[in-house]
């Protein structure tokens, strides 16, 4: 990491948090609808992971706004998607859970828990066959490590020594169910141990996440096969905007928020990279402004045309009646 990158990461974290609050606000206003999963509290993890995995393909879950932006997708295109507008990254057809940008090797947003993991395995297979070095990263939560798709993927990736980085964001909850009630232990890396190299990392420490992902990608690039990283994080909000978060006590929430990744990284910026208060404020203001512009852009963007409903069901637009 260098100062430039550190500043960029800080920018993305602050941007991410502001973006999420803006999304929530616009959900309350009725501009955004459907399921809206906020990444507040996990910005350090999301930004660091994506920036560390510089090149290569990324498959993520539905909690992916910040990851998408860290991968270079325009905040306004993400916000417009949340607004369901034609200018959204998925043309308003996908919404919050489905942000796709193949030109940035980001295959976003799957809303089936675990469903994207076999896809990532297949993509890693393709990269391997094509002789590409960078591999594939797949991100998922602790609740995902109890489902068949995850397990099958561990086995296949290990059998074929695929260039695949499994990145588990363990925030200890799947909606309202604590991981200890859905698995026999808290640490999900244990499940991967028979198959591959595993790492555990404090997901509230962006620098640590960054380093671990870098190391893991290097391992993959050197042809040692798949790697598993588990990052312990904490989401500050409910599972989605419609979840009241009643299953976590104030005490638990306070404990969790005390580890704030943005505050922590800011301190690093100041102490390690010697950023001045001014420099930091400039970054924060820029982030704030970008979010405001994104909301404005989304607000002013047109709705999709009605005929869009029938487009892109298929690549070849073939009429039902052929002859």
């Amino acid at each position, binding site marked *: 990491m260098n100062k430039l990158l550190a500043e960029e990461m800080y920018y993305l974290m602050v941007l991410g948090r502001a973006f999420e609050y803006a999304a929530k606000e616009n959900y309350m206003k009725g501009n955004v609808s459907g399921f809206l999963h906020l990444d507040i509290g996990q910005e350090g993890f999301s930004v660091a992971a994506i920036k560390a995995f510089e090149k290569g393909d990324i498959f993520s879950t539905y909690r992916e706004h910040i990851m998408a932006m860290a991968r270079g997708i325009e905040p306004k295109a993400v916000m417009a998607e949340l607004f*369901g507008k034609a200018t959204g990254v998925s043309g308003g*057809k996908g919404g919050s859970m489905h942000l796709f940008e193949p030109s940035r090797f980001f295959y976003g947003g799957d809303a089936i828990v675990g469903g994207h993991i076999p896809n990532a395995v297949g993509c890693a297979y393709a990269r391997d066959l094509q002789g590409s070095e960078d591999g594939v990263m797949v991100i998922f939560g602790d609740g995902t490590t109890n489902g068949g798709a995850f397990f099958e993927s561990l086995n296949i990736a290990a059998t074929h020594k695929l260039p695949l980085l499994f990145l588990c964001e363990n925030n200890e909850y799947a909606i309202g169910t604590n991981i200890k009630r859905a698995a026999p232990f808290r640490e999900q890396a244990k499940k991967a141990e028979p198959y591959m190299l595993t790492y555990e990392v404090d997901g509230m420490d962006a620098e640590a996440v960054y380093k671990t992902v870098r190391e893991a990608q290097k391992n993959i690039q050197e042809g040692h096969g798949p790697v598993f990283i588990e990052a312990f994080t904490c989401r500050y909000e409910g599972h989605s905007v419609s979840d009241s978060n009643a299953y976590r006590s104030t005490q638990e929430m306070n404990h969790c928020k005390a580890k704030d990744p943005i505050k922590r990284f800011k301190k690093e910026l100041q102490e390690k990279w010697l950023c001045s208060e001014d420099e930091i404020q400039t970054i924060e203001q820029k982030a704030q402004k970008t979010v405001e512009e994104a909301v404005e852009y989304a607000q002013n963007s047109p709705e999709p045309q009605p005929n869009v*409903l*029938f487009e892109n069901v298929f690549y070849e637009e073939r009429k039902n009646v052929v002859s």
Partner: protein
Amino acid sequence: MLYREALNRAIDEVMSVDETVVTLGEDVGLYGGSFRVTEGLVEKYGEKRVIDTPIAELSIVGNAVGMAIGGLRPIAELMTGNFSLLAFDQIINHMAKLRYMSNGKLTLPMVVRFPQGVSKQLAAQHSESYEQMLSAVPGLRVLSVNDVNYAYHALKYAILSDDPVVFIEHELLYNKKGEVDFTQELDPFKARIAKEGSDITIVSYLKMLDDVMLAVPEIEKELGCSCEVIDLCSLNPIDYATLSKSIEKTSRLVMVEEDHKTGGYGTQIIAWAAEEMFYALDAAPLRLAGEDVPIPYNRKLELASIPTPESIAQKVIEWGRKNDV
């Protein structure tokens, strides 16, 4: 009483008298259920009978099958029908077939319940309807009721029945209000005449039935006719007797559903009518259904992808005019 409260009441009542009844699913316990159908049950019956499961739909249904074999009466909840696809092997190859393959030696008193359908902007992976697939499986009963009173009685029946039942709900019905007559004896396999009429038989079910009812006044006004509206309630078996009686009276058939037009559930109703009621029909039947597209996120597109009260009224009126109704 709300629809979801009626379901809760049905489960609660059965659990309180029969300790072999258990319910399992993601967040059904401590969390109270994603749609609050199982609210309060874990406090009453404990974590051994109200079981929070991991996110593993294949296992949720597969475990319920094993529980039924082991002498329990499990009610498995899937958060939505969209995730039921992960459990299709257990639903179709196990739950539906084990009794037959064992020549009746095994009995599977179990229920799989889930909500489905277009709610509000949940996008393509959270908005589908799967009754056409599940109603085509021999060995499964499929109940899917619109009415609050029926919700109570049908679910209670399903839990107490010794056969495997798929109980399909709709996300937009949970807060529907209605009266429940607890003393009634109600056959959940009998279709419900939601409205009597003499000129057009309109068949529907689940949430779409409400949209049909909203469309009917305009249809009747514009066509100067009277509609009979039938709520199927049971999607398999189908109460053909009630349907044929109505069609004999009206000579005209309209089927309305939320599922896609190609291959949707209603094809069975229309195909049956074409085969069995052909000579009773005075006009080509009409089938209104969703477009053949995945459900989009944008609200306008989403609403354009399924029938609405307005589009139902408009299309039935158009058809009525063309067919001299």
